[in-house]
């Protein structure tokens, strides 16, 4: 047939590599900074040197890296699949609480009441551990719960929401209501999560004291590695055909259905993966800040995750990570320097990004790079 002659001239694009050459270079650089540079600057360089990385700095960057994981997770579900969740703070908090329960049990009898039970239970005059604390003694079980609890909650919620074809702003509102309801539930003392004080005063993790410089650095490195690992996972998901189906769901869901794909499975998979990533971020966050309480589930926290993604640039993966660093960095500086202006700044930032940077910081950088050529 003559068609074969003509088609031979066209070559199909090869499957995209996981990262470009520059991408891998930047990835390796980030890996070196997290695993080598930061520990050396913090632990070995003396405090008097200008190159010393302060403990405050380690804590701050460690925390922001947890936020960046959440922003990355948000990008998968919002940027690529077009489903705006305003309840991701819940999954973050669930992972945090799972870790917090383990850390509470690790206090042992060193609490104020010298009891085997966590202090708040003694205060409430409870004699035995509630059933849902059964696995909190085991670190392995805790690791499992950190992923499983947010995963199961997200799966069940997502199954019913996506099966009922709830979309757009309705879905966002329901997720917001979900995290708010969970917050009210966790505020109550009788649910056994420490009420409005939550969990704090942690002493040890794996029987090693938690408040030492080396433990702080270990958690920092672990968080950095998790962030980088999740980034690669997200890249892999997005560069597979799976990722293109997600974008297709975002752009024209009916066409996806009439092309023979059932969007339910796709949405549910990415939604659950995204929630699990947030759970892991929460679990890494809690030992670093030393506290978890229901305010982590407040609607404002979830909205902030969406802001990180929007500021950095949706559907870019790198963008939301940058966004988390930019916004949280600005927050930690402004709330110290000009505490009363932080909320105005956040509002202005959101308006500014929506009006002038629809593709976020990454979009701006791309435009500048394109313009200079």
């Amino acid at each position, binding site marked *: 047939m003559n068609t074969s002659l003509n088609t031979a001239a*066209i070559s199909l694009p090869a499957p995209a590599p996981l990262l470009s050459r520059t991408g891998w270079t930047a990835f390796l650089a980030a890996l070196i900074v997290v695993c080598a540079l930061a520990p050396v600057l913090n632990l070995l360089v003396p405090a008097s040197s200008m190159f010393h990385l302060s403990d405050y700095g380690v804590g701050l960057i460690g925390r922001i890296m947890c936020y960046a994981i959440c922003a990355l997770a948000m990008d998968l579900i919002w940027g690529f699949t077009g489903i705006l969740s305003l309840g991701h703070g819940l999954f973050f908090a669930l992972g945090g609480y799972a870790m917090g329960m383990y850390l509470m049990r690790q206090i042992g009898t060193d609490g104020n009441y010298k009891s085997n039970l966590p202090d708040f239970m003694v205060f409430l005059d409870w004699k035995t551990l509630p059933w849902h604390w059964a696995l909190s003694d085991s670190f392995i079980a805790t690791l499992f719960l950190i992923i499983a609890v947010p995963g199961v909650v997200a799966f069940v919620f997502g199954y019913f929401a996506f099966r009922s074809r709830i979309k757009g702003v309705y879905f966002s509102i329901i997720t917001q209501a979900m995290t708010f309801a969970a917050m009210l539930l966790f505020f109550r003392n009788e649910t056994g999560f420490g009420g409005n004080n939550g969990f704090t005063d942690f002493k040890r993790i794996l029987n090693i004291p938690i408040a030492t410089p080396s433990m702080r650095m270990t958690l920092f490195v672990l968080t950095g590695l998790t962030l980088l690992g999740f980034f690669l996972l997200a890249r892999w998901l997005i560069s597979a055909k799976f990722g*293109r189906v997600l974008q297709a769901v975002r752009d024209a869901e009916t066409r996806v259905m009439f092309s023979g794909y059932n969007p339910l499975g796709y949405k549910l998979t990415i939604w659950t993966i995204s929630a699990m990533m947030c759970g892991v971020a929460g679990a890494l966050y809690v030992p670093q800040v030393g506290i978890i309480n229901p305010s982590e589930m407040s609607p404002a926290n979830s909205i902030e995750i969406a802001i990180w993604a929007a500021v950095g640039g949706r559907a870019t993966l790198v963008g939301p990570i940058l966004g988390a660093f930019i916004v949280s960095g600005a927050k930690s500086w402004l709330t110290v320097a000009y505490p009363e202006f932080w909320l105005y700044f956040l509002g202005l930032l959101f308006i500014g990004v929506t009006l002038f940077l629809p593709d976020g910081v990454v979009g701006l950088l791309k435009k500048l790079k394109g313009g200079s050529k």
Partner: protein
Amino acid sequence: MTPELLEEGARRAEKHRATLTAQGGRTESGGREAGFSRLHTPGEVDITHGRILYLEDVSVSFDGFKAINKLSLDIAPGELRCIIGPNGAGKTTMMDIITGKTRPDEGQVFFGSTIDLLRYKESEIAQMGIGRKFQKPTVFEQLSVFENLELALKTNKAVTASMFFRLDSAQSDRLLEVLHTINLGDSLSRLAGNLSHGQKQWLEIGMLLMQDPKLLLLDEPVAGMTDEETERTAELFLTLKGKHSLMVVEHDMSFINTISDIVTVLCDGSVLAQGTLAQVQADERVIEVYLGR
């Protein structure tokens, strides 16, 4: 079924077999006559009774408005059927019912003789081999032409299969062939959102071809196309006829004149007239609904 319907079905099946043999193709039974006792394979379209699509007494109403009213219609294998009708006649609603988007209040919809379409979801119906083109061209605007076609490709469409999917060489050839057919070979890596309206229509038709459907439902496929593009579309449809069955909803009468055998006129949710284009154009009732009194 009445004896006339049975006989008509037998005639159609015979005609379909004759076309396929004339085109050098082979029927599913390898060119042999159909036996009277056949094993029924679930999920396989049974066209031995001469019908690939069969609607009987289908009705659906939205808030009291009868969009489809006792509609009965059938399509023979390999047929190219044109559907015309004034606005609000129920053409798009009928396609919604066939593809599972809308559930009828009553009636039966069969794909072949054995598959009850009312039991399946949109995605399952698409996988069985019914492809649909929308009135407004619907492509994945943020993906390239290549990626659009790749997504439509007939393959395992489960989540895990998509995670590990690699295009094999047979599939690449198929993709290139379709790309050539729809004349978008040099726009391979352009974003679908940047294509012209007519090119988007072609891309959507290409996506249908990638699905390799047995029945194609095309809602206004040449709307917004230039005369030349329309002509090429007509040629394409005529080559598809025979191997595939097509149902084309169109308003462009010259286009219909080029491609049609039988034209069905829908009005107020049921069939008003059916026949060749000349026949229906001469029909008093058709003139009345189109021109009014």
